[in-house]
Each structure stands twice: as structure tokens, then as C-alpha cells.
């Protein structure tokens, strides 16, 4: 999921950086005083989640949690995930500093898309109803991220379809795990602190 330094063409890297800067600017604008703690907690969860490796068959995958971040934060997912990615790069060497912009867009833009598509749906109806939509949103954001990663690789010269297939199929287990996780997170939040979502969905 983290593209490393040197794997992408320069225009893609620069384009990613510009898009990420734009997203972060919109995100910071939308981040009011009440939502800073949520953003901080989600940045921290994203930062740590990548260390939890789930062994699947011969390979292993790690959680990303960008769907949950998007559903709770909206555009503010951009700065939160950027901070998480930056620290992962510095502390663990995941990805690289030059591709930070591309990685931010690849992970945060699906989060925002998830929020746009499912943000209203999870806040409506019964908590269980919302949790199901939350689960679908969690899986969708991972699928979108794999698509974005494949597009970044395709723009740098890799053939799109093989790259997309490889990344997509490798992440099917993550999608399943994240769907369950996001679903339960939404269920819990709807029961314990329902205003968490309503605020996001209407703002």
C-alpha cells in the first residue's frame, strides 16, 4: 500500500504532492476545535494499525483503517492520515518522503470518497443498519485505495490491469477485515456517541 521512493515517475510524484497539499488545506479548514481530538486519535490508530500484520496464506497484510477515518473526519482525514503517513515514513521507513504526497492522496482521497458516499447512510436508520453501511464503506475505501495505487503505478509506466489486479486481490482479506472492523466501530459509535457521525454528515 505504501509506494516506495523511486517507483514512480516524477510528474506523478509532483502531481501527488500538489493534490495532497490541496486536500490537507481543505481538511485543515474543516477541522474545528471539537474535531481535533477525533483527528488525533484516528491519526494515531492509522499510524499503529499498519504494524498489525494479519497473516493470510503465504503472505500477510496490514490494516489501513482509512474508511473509518473518512467516515468520522470527512475532509479532515487528509491532515490526519498525512501525519500518520509522515511518521510511518520517518519511524518505520514505510514508503518514502518524496512519494509522501502520492501515498497521502492514495489513502486519504478514498477516505473522503467513502465519507461522501456513505457518510449520510451510516447516520440514518437503526444502528445495525448504519453499521452495515459502515462495513461496506470500510471495504470500499480499501478497494478504492488499491485502484488509486494501480493508477499511480500505471501513470509511471506499469501496465494498469495486471498491477491493479495484483494489488486488488492481495487486499481482499484486508477489505473483509476492515469491513467487519469499521462495521463494529460504527455500531458502537452509533450506540454510544451518535452525534459523532451526524455532525460529519451534515457539515
Amino acid at each position, binding site marked *: *500500500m*505504501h*509506494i*516506495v521512493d*523511486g*517507483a*514512480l515517475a516524477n510528474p506523478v510524484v509532483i502531481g501527488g504532492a500538489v493534490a495532497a497539499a490541496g486536500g490537507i488545506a481543505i481538511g485543515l479548514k474543516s*477541522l*474545528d*476545535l471539537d474535531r*481535533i*481530538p477525533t*483527528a*488525533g486519535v484516528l*491519526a*494515531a490508530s492509522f*499510524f*499503529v494499525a*499498519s*504494524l498489525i*500484520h494479519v497473516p*493470510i*496464506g*503465504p*503472505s*500477510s*497484510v*496490514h490494516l489501513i483503517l482509512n474508511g473509518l477515518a473518512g467516515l468520522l473526519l470527512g475532509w479532515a482525514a487528509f491532515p490526519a492520515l498525512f*501525519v*500518520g503517513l509522515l*511518521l*510511518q515514513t*520517518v*519511524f*518505520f*521507513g*514505510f514508503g518514502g518522503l518524496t512519494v509522501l504526497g502520492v501515498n497521502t492522496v492514495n489513502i486519504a482521497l478514498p477516505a473522503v470518497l467513502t465519507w461522501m458516499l456513505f457518510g449520510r447512510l451510516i447516520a440514518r436508520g437503526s444502528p445495525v443498519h448504519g453499521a452495515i453501511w459502515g462495513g461496506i464503506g470500510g471495504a470500499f475505501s480499501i478497494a478504492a485505495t488499491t485502484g488509486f*495505487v494501480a493508477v*499511480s*503505478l500505471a501513470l509511471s509506466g506499469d501496465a494498469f490491469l495486471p*498491477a491493479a*489486479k*495484483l*494489488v486488488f*486481490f*492481495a*487486499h*481482499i*482479506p484486508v477489505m473483509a477485515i476492515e469491513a467487519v472492523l469499521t462495521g463494529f466501530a460504527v455500531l458502537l459509535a452509533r450506540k454510544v456517541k451518535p452525534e459523532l457521525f451526524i455532525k460529519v454528515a451534515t457539515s
Partner: protein
Amino acid sequence: MKKLTLICTLILTPLPALAHKVIAGVFPAGEAIEGELGFSNGDMAVDQEVIVYGLDGAELGRTVTDADGFFLFTPTRPVAHTFKADLGAGHVADVTMPADEVADILGVEAEASDPPVLAAPAESGATITVASLSDEERAAIAKIVRDETRPLRREIAAYREHNDLQSILGGIGYIIGLFGIGFYVAARKKMTA
């Protein structure tokens, strides 16, 4: 049903560990350069093509990794060798062996086009002590040392990729600090507004 089987086989095929970092290293090994290529979780890259470039970007040759992720390349010119491999899905390996190390393997001086590097004075002493040994004996010793240190090298490489609790806590500390600054800025904005 057919589709389901296809999806299942695709999931179960050994895909490269996408969530991991690529580790690559090169070391002098007798007359050749030995290198290893793999992922930080211990999976080694098998049958992976490695392309070797010189200082000016010209291709010097290609080699393929064996079942343990090791590859061998015999240098012909004493210039810096850069080994590149594309492991797919955004994973690339890029390691360089400096010209003086390559020159040591070949037993000649490094080519002048390279940036000057500090000579290691200790090496001349090492050459004198083994001078009494025959070439075969020296090669045998070198091979034994290589084989003995290989697991160590691997362990060191794995250790370097190891994430300990301190860096995790450090990262979380940074996040708390950053969002604390965010709070400060937001609070100031509210006060002035």
C-alpha cells in the same frame, strides 16, 4: 462457481508480501559480488531478475536470484555497481556497491571517474597476514567465512527493519504534540474571533 474458484485461486497464489519493505544488500564474495533480495518479513525474492548498472547508467549485465533470494554477479570493471530490481506493485530495490569495494574484488585500482573515497589503512595489514596462504586456501577460508556470516547478515538486516515499542510510542507522542499545537492554534483563533 467458476468465477469463485478463480477468485479463490488468485487469493491463494503466493503474491509478494505487499505490506512489507524491500531489503537488499550486496557484499564482496571472492571474485564476485554477492547480494540478497527479499522482504522485511523474511520472504526472499525467488527467481527475480536483477539489472546491474554502472556509474553512468549503462547496463553492465543481469543476474537472477536463486531460491534463497541470493544472486551473484561477477564484475569486470572497477566502477560503482548499482543493482536494481523491480519486485512489482511499487516495490523496487536499489543498492550500490562503491567503486573501491569492486576494485578490491578485482584486485585493481578504482577507476578515476569515481568520486574519491577514503582508503582504509587497516586493509594492507590483512593482506600481509594471508599472504603465506595459497590461493586455494584463501578461497576456502573466504567461502567458510561467507557461509558462517550469512545468517548473521540476514539477522542484522531483519533487526534493522524491526520496529520496537520506543519508535511506536515516539510516533504517538509526535501525534499528540502535533494535535496539541492544532488545539492551540484553534483556541487562539477562537479567542481573537
